C-alpha cells in the first residue's frame, strides 16, 4: 500500500539541516577560502613565499596551499620579487591569462615600488602594469606578513558586492 505523502513543507529529518543565506555571501565565502596562488617568484621574496607554503607557516591553513603554475587554474597572483622591464610584459600576459575573478598581491618592496632598484632596468612597482589588491612591505617580508596579506585579501573578497549579479550578467 502506498501511503499518500501529505507533507508539503521541508522535512529537515529527511533532507538534512538547512542554512538560509544570500548567494553573494556563499560565493564570496567559497572564493575567499580557496584562493589558489599563481606564484610569480622573481627574486628573494619567492624564498619567503616558499616558506609560507611549507609546514612551519603552512598557508594551507587559509586554503591557499594549491600553488598553480598554470595561470588558468589560479586565482591570486603573488608577485614576489623584482620586476624588470624585460619581465614586465610576461607578468602582464600571465595575468591576462588568469580566469576571472582574479587578484594580485604585490609582495615586498620591489614588487610594490621598485624597492631599492631605482634604475633603468626595473619596473617601479608592478601596479604600473597590473591592478594590485594588497601590497606587502618588507625586504623581504616575513611569511607572517604574506599570510596577513592573504587574510586581508580574503576579507576584501568576502566583502565584494554584486558577485552573483556579475556572474549572471557575464
Amino acid at each position: 500500500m502506498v501511503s499518500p505523502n501529505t507533507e508539503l513543507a521541508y522535512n529537515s529529518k529527511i533532507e538534512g539541516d538547512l542554512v538560509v543565506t544570500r548567494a553573494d555571501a556563499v560565493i564570496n565565502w567559497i572564493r575567499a577560502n580557496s584562493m589558489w596562488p599563481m606564484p610569480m617568484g622573481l627574486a628573494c621574496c619567492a624564498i619567503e613565499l616558499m616558506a609560507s607554503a611549507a609546514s612551519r607557516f603552512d598557508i594551507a591553513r587559509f586554503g591557499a596551499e594549491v600553488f598553480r603554475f598554470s595561470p588558468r587554474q589560479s586565482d591570486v597572483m603573488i608577485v614576489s620579487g623584482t620586476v624588470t622591464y624585460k619581465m614586465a610584459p610576461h607578468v602582464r600576459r600571465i595575468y591576462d591569462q588568469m580566469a576571472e575573478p582574479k587578484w594580485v598581491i604585490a609582495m615586498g618592496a620591489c614588487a610594490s615600488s621598485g624597492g631599492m632598484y631605482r634604475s633603468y632596468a626595473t619596473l617601479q612597482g608592478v601596479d604600473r602594469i597590473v591592478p594590485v589588491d594588497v601590497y606587502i612591505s618588507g625586504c623581504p617580508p616575513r611569511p607572517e606578513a604574506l599570510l596577513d596579506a592573504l587574510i586581508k585579501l580574503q576579507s576584501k573578497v568576502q566583502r565584494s558586492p554584486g558577485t552573483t549579479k556579475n556572474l549572471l550578467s557575464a
Partner: protein
Amino acid sequence: MTAPADVFAAVQSQFPAATARPTLDHTAINVPMGDAVAVLTTLRDTQAFDFLVDVTAVDWGVEATPRFSVVWHLLSTTTNNYVRVVAACVSDTEPVAPSISQLWAGANWHERETFDLLGIRFEGHPDLRRILMWDGYPHHPLRKDFPLAGIDTPLPDLEVGELTKATAAPAPMMGGPFVASVGEMNMTDAEPSAKDESWNERSNKPAAL
C-alpha cells in the same frame, strides 16, 4: 712556474708595442687592439693562463679619447697568477674589438654582456645579441652618457605597452643616488634616501627646488 714579472717580459719580447699598465694588484699589460688576440693566445698557450675570468670594458667618459678600453682578465690554474690585458678601442663612436670566443668558449656571454651594456661590437662573435636588456633596446646603459634613472623607452612588448600605457620610464631618483667618498657625506645623515617627497614619478619636481 712563471713569476708575475716574467709574464710581462715574455709578452713584451714577442709584442714590442705592449706596455706595462699601472696596477695595484696583478700584472697588467696595455696592448694595441690589433695585438690583443695574439697576446691572449700567447698567454694561454705559452704562459699557462688557461682560464678566462672576465671580459669587460671601461668607458672613460664622453670627452675622453680613446673613450673605450676592453679588459680581459686571465687566471692560470697551475701558477695561480692573474693577468689583466687592456686594449683601447680605435673608434670612440663605434668601438670594435676582436672576439675571443674561439679561444675560450666562455667569452661568448661575457662579450654579449659587454656589447649589451657598453656597446662594444665584438668582431667574429658567433651570436652577438643583447643578453641582459631586451632585443631592440636602443641604448647601452653602462655608458657614461646614460643616466642611471634610464631613458624613456617603450616596453619590449608593444601590445602590453599599449594596453597598460606603461613605458620603461626614468626611475624617480628622489635626490639620489647617494655616492659618497670618505668624509664627504655622513651616510647616517643621508638616510632615508627620500628626504624630499614633494616630487616623484607622478608629480614633477617643483621649479623652485
